[in-house]
Each structure stands twice: as C-alpha cells, then as structure tokens.
C-alpha cells in the first residue's frame, strides 16, 4: 500500500516533470516553427521531421523498455515489471502510429506517393503490428500471472525479431532518406547546426513526455490493482 507521504512525494516529482515537459515542448515548438530555417529543396513540409524522428526514437525506446521489463518480469516475477512493460508497450504503439501517420504526410509531396515499400517503412509497419498483437494478447487474457507471463514471452520474442526484420527488409529494398544525424561522416555532420539543435530540443521534449506518460499510466495501473484489492477485501469481510 502507498503511504500518504509517498503519494505526496510522487505528486511533487510528477509536477516537476509536467513543468519540464511543458517547457521543453514550448521550446521545441518555438524552435520548429519560428527559429529553424526552412529547408531549401523540400520546403516547409520538412519541418514535420522534427516530430517524425523523435516519435520514431520514442517508440523504439519504449519497445526496448518492454523487452527489458519482460526479461526482468520472467526473472523476478514481480507485478511491478509487468505494469512497466504494459505501459511502455501502449506508449510505444501510440508513437509508432504517429510515425506511420507523419511519414506519409511528408512522403506525399516529396516522393509523390503516400506509401512506398521501402525497408524502413516496412519494418516500422511490421513493428507496429507486432506490438498491436502484444496489446491484443493482453486484452484477450484475463488479468493475472498467466497474462503477465505470456505477454513477457511475447515482449522478448518480438524485440529479438527486430534485427532480423531490419536486415530482411533492408536486403529486400531501400529508398528512405539516409540517416543524416549519425552518418558515416561522424555525428551531426550531415545537417545544418540550427536544424540539429531543433531536432535535439524536440528529442528531449519527446523523451520527457515518455517518462511523464509512463508515470501517469503506471500510477493508474497501480491504483487499479489497489481498487481490486480493496473490493475483494470488502467482499470477503462483509
């Protein structure tokens, strides 16, 4: 059970996080829409990149957290890790969906098509399906140790598939713009400094948002457990 002190401390921490995330997003939006120069060849639509790349980063990071928490769950068998894996998978799927939405909005004017079967697009789509299936598995099974174990196995199996999917679709075909931030010429050489800074701010804002959402979702799930426990207690005592 959470003591009242712990709750207060938690709230204090999360309110600092809320402020930080808010400020980071304010800075990111100012940077994206006012500060950063418009890209010469692609025009204004290129600004969507400052949402697209951070969303992609966030979803991969979230899926990695699912993987780690799944291993920890199978190892320690503590409900805590199951909650983290669940919350992280949900956030990952949301941001993966954003990647799949912002990508075509950019691709339509630049490539002249909403979708092409490029390596990165294909692997993002497959990744999205894998984690939607993961959430479906959770929704299909009743709460309890079985759901947590099965989801953890799928969290591990799914993440280990990512490198295999990456190479298979890479050898299959590739058109996506080559990575500019971290390229063979060194970190940040392929990009103008203002753009790099804007991307950096945006990445920070999204990462903070991840932790904020995680905190909210985990707290919600824990309260749900608490309610279930109290319900059972009153049911048996009366």
């Amino acid at each position, binding site marked *: 059970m959470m003591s009242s002190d712990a709750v207060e401390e938690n709230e204090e921490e999360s309110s600092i996080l809320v402020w930080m995330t808010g400020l980071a997003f304010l800075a990111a939006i100012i940077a994206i829409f006012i500060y950063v120069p418009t890209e010469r060849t692609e025009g204004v639509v290129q600004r969507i990149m400052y949402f697209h790349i951070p969303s992609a980063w966030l979803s991969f990071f979230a899926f990695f957290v699912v993987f780690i928490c799944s291993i920890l769950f199978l190892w320690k068998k503590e409900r805590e890790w199951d909650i983290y894996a669940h919350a992280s998978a949900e956030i990952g799927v949301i941001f993966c969906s954003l990647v799949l939405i912002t990508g075509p909005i950019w691709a339509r004017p630049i490539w002249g098509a909403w979708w092409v079967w490029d390596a990165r697009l294909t692997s993002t789509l497959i990744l999205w399906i894998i984690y939607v299936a993961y959430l479906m598995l959770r929704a299909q099974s009743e709460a309890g140790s079985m759901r947590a*174990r099965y989801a953890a196995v799928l969290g591990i*199996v799914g993440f280990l598939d990512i490198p295999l*999917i990456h190479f298979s679709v890479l050898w*299959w075909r590739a058109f996506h713009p080559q990575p500019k931030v971290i390229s063979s010429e060194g970190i940040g050489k392929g990009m103008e400094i203002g753009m790099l800074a804007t991307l950096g701010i945006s990445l920070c804002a999204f990462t903070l948002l991840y932790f904020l959402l995680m905190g909210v979702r985990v707290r919600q799930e824990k309260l749900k457990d608490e309610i279930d426990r109290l319900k059972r207690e009153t049911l048996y005592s009366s």
Partner: protein
Amino acid sequence: MNLFISQVSAIVWKDFTIEFKTRELFSAMFIFALLVILIFIFSVNLSVVEASEVGPGILWVAFLFSGTIGLNRSFALEKENGCLMALMLMPADRTAIYFGKLISNFVFLTIMELFILPLFMIFFNIDLLEHLFPLLIVIFLGTLGFCALGTLLSSLASNLKTREIMLPILLYPLLVPIVIAVVRMTGQVLAGEPLSEMMNWIGLTASFDIIYIGVSIMTIDHILEE
C-alpha cells in the same frame, strides 16, 4: 541425455500414433495447401505473370497457411481431456515437451511439403528436379524456423479463449524475416543460382532458427506453468 532423448521421442511417438489412427491432420493440411495454391492461381493471371516469379511466393504461402493449421492443432489436441496437464505431470523437463512438439510439427509439415512439391511442379510447369538438393535445404531451414517459433506461440495461444484467431496474429508479423528470406531463396534456387550466392539469406534464416529455438528453451518453462 539419453533420458531426454527418450522423453522427446515418446512425445513424438504419441503424436504419430494419434495421427496414424485418426488421419485428421495430414489430410486437412494437404488439402488446405492445395486449395491455397488453387486460389492463388485464380487470383494471378499466369498468362501475363511469369510462373517462376510468383511461384515461390505462392508455394510458401501455402506451406505457412497449412502449417498454421498443424500448429493450432498441436496444442489444442492436448487441451482435450486435460492431456496437457498429464504431459506436465510427467517427470520430465518442459523443454522435452517443446522439442517433442517441435519435432512432430516439423515432420508433419515436411511430409506435407514433399507431397505438395510434385503438384507445384505440374501446376506451374517449373522443373524442380534439377535444383532439388538446394531447394530441400531451403525448405528445411524455412520449415524449421516456422516450427521453432510456431510451436512456442502455439503452446502460448492454446491457453487463450480465442486461440485459433490469436495464433496467426501473433505469429505472422514475427515470421516476416523468414518469409522474405525463403521466398527470395526459392526464387533464386529455381533460377539456377547456387546456394553460395545467397549466403546472407541462409545466414539470416539459420540465425532465426537458432535464436528462436534458444528463446523457446529459455521461456517454455514460463508458458507451461500452472
């Protein structure tokens, strides 16, 4: 080690005895694979498209779809009359159950594939005999990967209420690397290229097989647990 092998072979033998007696699974898988090939023949115009271009894809879709029937059956069969519980009560490691199921799934699917190949050869007018040996290696690697991951997920899905629906939903996205690899390799093999030209695909498929057999050994204890 000998004990482990005899435990695994007991499970494989049990599955074979059931199959010899009922003959349900094999015929269903074979007819289903044949139907999938027929439906694809109707949906692509073979007078326009080169048969050797679409052939490998159609062949593997047929294998994987009918293989899914086998996987669904594999653990669903054990749920009847609490057989799975009896298997788990057996004084054996849970990995023995996994390997027993893996081997029987693999053997059923391979036999079915060997029956489909001659029909494929006739329907698509492709000469397989010339490239039979490399083709069999590709089929072996692909089928093993499919069964390694499929057996694990089938043991997992069999405890869900909606197992027939959930197994393909969980399995197919994870199978993407194997599907791309085997379809590519089959196409290249049928075009007469030697296996040494496609080492990257062979490596990918072999690592898929090894990774998922390894993961299954490590996680099967957590799935078959009551």
